[in-house]
C-alpha cells in the first residue's frame, strides 16, 4: 500500500467506517433499554393511577421509587396506591419515605399516622403524630389528632396537654375547646369545662348537639 492512490483509498475507507460507527450507527449511543423502560414506567404509573387501576400501577411505581429514591412524588404515589389497595403497613412505610425525601415533610402528615393506625401500630401512630406536630408550619390539626390518639392509648393527661398546645396555636379552633372541655369535665374541673364548652358554642353555635353527645359518652365513666 505504498502508492498515493492506495493510501488515499485506505484512509477514506477507514474514515468512512469511523463515521458510520461513531455518528451514523445507533448501536452505541442510544439510551439503553433500562432507561427507556423507566420512561415507560413513568407514564404507566401516572396513567394507571389516574385511571384508578391501582394494582397495575404498583409495579411501575415501585421501579420508579427504586430509580429515583430522592423524589418524594413517586413515594407519595406509591403510598396512595397502597392506601387504595388497603395495605396499611406498606403505605406507612411509603409515607415515611415521603417524609425523608420531601423538603416539606409535613406533606406526609397526617396520612403516615393514619396508615399506622390502620395497621394497628398505635405506638408508631403516636410517634408519627408527635413528629407531625413538631414540623413546620405549625398546625393545630395535628394536636387534635395527637390528643385523640393519646386518648385511645389512655394517656389522658398527655392528651389534655396536646389540646392545650393546639389552643395556643389557634384559640379559635372550636374542636379543641370541645375536646379540652370534655377532658376538664372528665377531670372534675366543671367550671373550666363549662367555660370551654361555652367557647366552643360561641365559635360553632350550630354544633350544640356534639357537646351533649360527648357528655353522654363521658358521663358513664364518672
Amino acid at each position, binding site marked *: *500500500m*505504498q*502508492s*498515493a*492512490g*492506495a*493510501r*488515499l*483509498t*485506505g*484512509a*477514506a475507507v*477507514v*474514515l468512512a*467506517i*469511523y463515521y458510520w*460507527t*461513531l*455518528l*451514523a*450507527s*445507533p*448501536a*452505541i*449511543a*442510544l*439510551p*439503553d433499554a433500562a*432507561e*427507556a423502560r*423507566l*420512561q*415507560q414506567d*413513568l*407514564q404507566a404509573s*401516572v396513567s394507571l393511577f389516574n385511571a384508578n387501576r391501582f394494582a397495575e400501577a404498583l409495579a411501575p411505581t415501585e421501579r420508579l421509587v427504586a430509580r*429515583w429514591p*430522592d*423524589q*418524594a*412524588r413517586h413515594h407519595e404515589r406509591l403510598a396512595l396506591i397502597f392506601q387504595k389497595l388497603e395495605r396499611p403497613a406498606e403505605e406507612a412505610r411509603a409515607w415515611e419515605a415521603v417524609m425523608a*425525601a*420531601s*423538603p*416539606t415533610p409535613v406533606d406526609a402528615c397526617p396520612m403516615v399516622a393514619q396508615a399506622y393506625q390502620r395497621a394497628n401500630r398505635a405506638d408508631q401512630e403516636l410517634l408519627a403524630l408527635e413528629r407531625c406536630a413538631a414540623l413546620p*408550619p405549625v398546625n393545630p390539626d395535628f394536636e387534635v389528632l395527637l390528643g385523640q390518639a393519646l386518648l385511645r392509648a389512655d394517656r389522658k393527661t398527655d392528651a389534655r396537654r396536646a389540646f392545650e398546645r393546639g389552643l395556643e396555636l389557634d384559640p379559635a379552633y372550636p374542636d379543641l375547646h370541645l375536646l379540652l372541655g370534655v377532658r376538664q369535665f372528665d377531670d372534675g374541673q366543671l367550671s373550666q369545662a363549662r367555660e370551654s364548652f361555652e367557647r366552643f358554642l360561641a365559635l360553632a353555635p350550630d354544633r350544640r348537639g356534639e357537646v351533649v353527645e360527648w357528655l353522654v359518652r363521658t358521663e358513664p365513666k364518672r
Partner: protein
Amino acid sequence: MTAVRRAGYAIAVTFWLLTALAALLTSQDFIYEQFLKPELLPPLAWFVRYWAAVATAAGLLWFMPRGLPASRPHASTWFTTISWAATVLAGWGGYSLAALTPGGTALTCAAIAAAMLVPIAIAEQPDARARVGEARARTAADFVACLLTAVMVTIIDGATVVMGNGSMSMTGAWLVARGPLLVGMVAFLVLTLVRGLGGWFSRPVVAEARGTVIMLGALFGWFISRVVLPSISIDGWQATVGGLLAGVAVALAITIRGVSRLENRDDGVASVLGSLAPRLAGRLPGFAAWCAVLAVLSFAVNDLTRAGDWNSIGARLGILVVWLLALGGAKRVVRMPGEGEPAVFLGFALLVLAAYAGIERMVGPGVQAQSPAARWTAELLTPVSADGPTALFDQLPRHTNVPSSHAVAAVQVDWAVLEGPPAAERPDIFVFVVDSLRRDYLSPYNPAVTFTPAIDAFARDSLVFSRAFTQYGATGLSVPSMWMGGPLLHKQYIVPFAPMNALARLLTHERYAQWVSMDNILDVILPATPALEPLDRQVPVRDFRLCRTLDEVRARLGDRPGGSPPVFAYSLPQDIHVSVITREGAGPVDGERYDGFYAPVASRVRRLDGCFGAFIADLKARGLYEKSIIVVTSDHGDSLGEEGRMGHAYTLYPEIARVPLIVRVPAAMRDRYVWDPQRPAYTTDLTPTLFRLLGHEPVPPRPFFGESLAALPGETRPPPRNRMIAASYGSVYGALLDGATRLYVADAIQRRELAFELGPGAVAGTAIPVTPALRRAGGDVIRATVEAIAEQYRFHPKPR
C-alpha cells in the same frame, strides 16, 4: 528585527480577529442591546471606543519593520498596507466600530476584518520560493505523532480532573482518554488523506502543505459555523459559508510561515503543523517544556471559562487550541527513520475504533464526564436522532432573534378596559426581580439554605409559589414579557413598546408614582411619563445592587409627604448575575463556608437578604408593611456548575427555567381571593394578578398569555395548561407539560432534545429520556405558541 517583525505580525492578526469579533457581536440585536450598550464587557467596550487609534497603532507596528528601506518590502506588503489604511480611513470616516449598529453593515465589517487576515498573511511570505525536496510517505511518523498528541492531551485533561476531584475512577479515565484517542486517529486518517491527495500533484510537498492548511481551515470553519455562530443566532448558509471562509483565513494567518518557508523540504504536512509549535519543541527537553506550557494554558482556560456566560464556547476554543498546539509539538518531535506500511497503521486505527466500541458497551450510558473536553467529546459522539423533530428544528430559528432589519409593528395588548377613577384601595407595590436568583438558594424553597433568614421570615407571611417558572431564560425577553403579561415576538425590540406594556398602562391609570431602576431594557419598554421617578440614576446597570436601591427607596419613603400617590417600586438588581460575579473575581464576598452551594452566589444572596430584612423592618416601622404588595422573584435562574454548565445565555435547563416567586398581599386583599401556591405559576402571571388586585378583571389578550395568580371565590379554574417557555438569546424552546411536572426542550441550535422531570424538592429537575409521546406533546405546544405569536404580530418569518 525578526522578533519585532513577528511581534508586529502577531499584533496585526490579533487586532483583525478582535475587530471581526467585535463587529460580529455588534451585528446581533440581542448582544448589542444586552451586553454592548450597557458595557457589560469592559475590555471589548474599550477596544470598540478606541478602535481607530488602536488600528493606527497596530498598523504602524506591523508596517515599520517591513516598510523601512533596509527591509525592501515587496508588492504584497504595499498592497496590504494600502488595504489596511483604506479600512482605517473608512473607520475614521464614520464606519468605526463605535458607530456600528446591529444589522448587515456590522456583518460586512466583520467579513472585511476577517478577510484582512489574507493580505497580511500573503505579505508575510518570503520573496524567494522555498526549495522543495522529494515527498515521501510518512505514515508511521504521522501515526506516532497523532498517538503522542492523544496521550499528551489525555494526561493534561486527566490532571485537570484529578486536581478538581482529588481522584479519578477507571471509568472517568476512560471518558477522558476516549476523545483524544478518537480525535488522534481521525487526525491521522485525515493526514493520510492529505498526503495521498498531494501525491497526485506535480509538487507533492507544496500540495501537502496547502492541503493541510485547507484541512485546518475546514476545522476552524466547522468550529466557527457549528459552535460559535449558532450560539449567537447566526445559522443556515450564512453561518456555513462565513464560517468556512473565516476558518480558512484564520488557518492561513497562523500557518503562513510553515506554508511559505517549508522548513521540512520533503514534508509539507510537518512544515505546516510544526509551525504551530516553537522550534525548541523539536528536541525532547524542549518538547517536555512545550507540554508543560500547554498544561498551564489548559488549566488557565478552564479557570477563565469556569464562571462565565457562554463559557462552553471559550472552553471549547481552548480545547481546540491546546489539541492543535499539542499536535504541532508532536509533529516537530517525532522523527521516524522508516516510512512504515500504511496498511498496518490503518489497521491500528481500526483496532482503536473496535476497542472504543467494546469499552463503550461495558461502560454504558449515563456516566457523567468530568472535564470540559470529555463532556464535549460525549456531546459530539451523541448521534443526532434520526426521528428528531426536524421540521421544528428548522422552524424555530426563523422565529428567533428576529433582526431589527425585519420591521414588525407593535400590537395593542389590553388586559382590561382601563376607565373611570383609580381604585379605592391602591396599596404600595414593591417588585424586586433579582437577576439570576435561583429558587434553591432561598430557604423557603430549600431547607438546606441557612443564609436567607430575612426572606424566610418574609415567606412565612407570604404566598410562596412552589412551582414558579420564567417565561424566558434570560433577561432580554423575560423582563418585557413580565410587564406585558405573556410571551412576545422573539425580537429585541419592537418599538414603540408602549402599546404592549400593559403593566405600565395600569400603573399610569391608577396614578402610581413609578420608582423604577431604569436599565437598558426599561429604557426601551417603559414609556416616559411624569410619574416616572427613576431609581439608581447615574448608576451603570452592571452596578445595580439591591442594598443600594433599597436604601434609596427607604430614603424616598421617608421623604414622601402625606397624601402622595401610591408607589410602584421596581428594580432588577445585578448582585448575582454571572457577568458581575465573573468581573468581581468569582469568589465569595465574605469568609463564610457554603457547602453544597456555589459560594460566590450564596455569599451575595446572604448579603442581599440582610438588606431585604432591613427594608422589611423599615416598612413595618412606617406601618406600610401590612398595606403593601411585595414581590420577590427573578427573571430566570442560572446554571451554576450542573454538568459543567454556567450561566443562562442560550440554554434552557430546569435550574434556569424555575424561579422563586414570593408574593405578599395585604391581608384583606388576600382574603378576597383564592390562592393556590402549588399551581404552576409564571413570571408573566404578575401583570394579570395586579390587574385583578387593583379591581380590573383581567381578560387574556390571547390564550397563550399568563393568568392571574389570584382566583375569584367560586371560580372554577381549568387545569394548568401546558405552556411554552424559551431562551432569550437562541432558538431553544421548552414546553412545561402535565401540570409543569415535566419539561421538554427542543434545542434547535444543537438540534437535540432534552427532557426533565421536575420534582417538588430543591433539585430543579432530573433528566429523563425523550419519548415519542413527550416529543409530540412538547413539540405541539411549542409549535402552536410560536405560530400564534407570529399570527398576533402578523409576522412572516423569512427563510434562512
